């Protein structure tokens, strides 16, 4: 069996910059699921996340020449995905605000669903649906920092590079996001009881 040479992300990107489309395909395969999970936490919908993911890879395809090998490829691609997600969120927020202002009070839909049977103890595992809901309620900078750290399990340094925010700010954002999230989750569980 022939040994398959494993190229680094940077090498693949350089090959792709020189016109090798197989290298692009390999990069897509390497990052599609990681990025999907990252984007999914922004929107809570797989279909929406796939659309943004597709856009991310299309941007990678056409903007390949903008990549400089001095930076990590993973940081670069995460930055693209994060920026596209933020832009989409902003668009939706605008749309939502205009729709809400058009609706009457009686027509407003409140999408808060609770599971029927739950363990109310605070130090048990939180329900996935609740966590996703609470994450989506966070402000975008806190959400990005939390997802990258606690779900994607990236280092503080990588997160700082992706978000282009100083390391100290990132640490504080992650801590604040965690405090806010646990507060929200605690409230949800308390209300249920």
């Amino acid at each position, binding site marked *: 069996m022939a040994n398959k040479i494993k190229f680094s992300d940077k090498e693949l990107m350089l090959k792709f910059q020189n016109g090798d489309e197989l290298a692009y395909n390999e990069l*897509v395969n390497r990052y599609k699921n990681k990025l999907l999970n990252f984007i999914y936490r922004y929107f809570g919908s797989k279909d929406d996340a796939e659309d943004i993911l597709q856009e991310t890879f299309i941007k990678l395809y056409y903007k390949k020449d903008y990549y400089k090998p001095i930076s990590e490829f993973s940081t670069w691609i995460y930055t693209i995905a994060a920026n596209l997600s933020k832009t989409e969120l902003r668009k939706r927020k605008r749309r939502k605000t205009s729709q809400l202002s058009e609706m009457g009070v009686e027509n407003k839909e409140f999408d808060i669903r609770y599971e029927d049977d739950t363990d109310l103890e605070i130090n048990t595992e*939180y329900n996935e649906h609740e966590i996703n809901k609470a994450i989506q309620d966070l402000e975008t900078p806190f959400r990005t920092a*939390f997802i990258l750290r*606690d779900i994607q*399990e990236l280092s503080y340094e990588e997160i700082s590079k992706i978000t282009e925010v100083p390391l100290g700010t990132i640490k504080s954002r992650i801590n604040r996001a965690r405090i806010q999230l*646990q507060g929200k989750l605690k409230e949800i569980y308390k209300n249920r009881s």
Partner: protein
Amino acid sequence: MNCYTFKDRVSDYLEKKLSIYDKKSFEKQLKACLCCSEIYSGVKSLIFSSKKLNKVSVSSDFNKNLFVKIKKTKNPNQVKFYNKNFFGYKPKYIFGSFVSSLMILFIILNLFDNKNSEVINIQPKNENNILKNNQPLPVFSNQSVIDSIVDSTQKNNIKNNFLNSKGQTVDYTP
């Protein structure tokens, strides 16, 4: 340590980044305050649960759809020739700066070119010139009359060359 500091340091404690001293005071506060202990257990559970969230994966035809879309999409961000970088400069900027430098050069050359410009050559009338030309010089008796008639420039040129009533050249410079 108070509750505010405790909140600020929860993550550092969970990631084992506190100094021994801070760790001890953190643990002291954790035992002493019920509210802080709830926050601590809440954050700990959250981190634990987040790591165990279900992973989603792309649909089976994701790659196929992606390549179809890439083929359909004409490069919207294609870098045009005039936007490309050549040794750190863009052609449109090189052209622009070349033209503006030429214009500046042209303006400077025109400003300092003496051949075509009309320069009024004013020669100061000194005593020798006046005497050579044998022109009659005005006669004034005092400085105030002179000052009221001639402006400062003219004054500079001729005030040294007036004749007094006896026909002698007198320097009226104050």
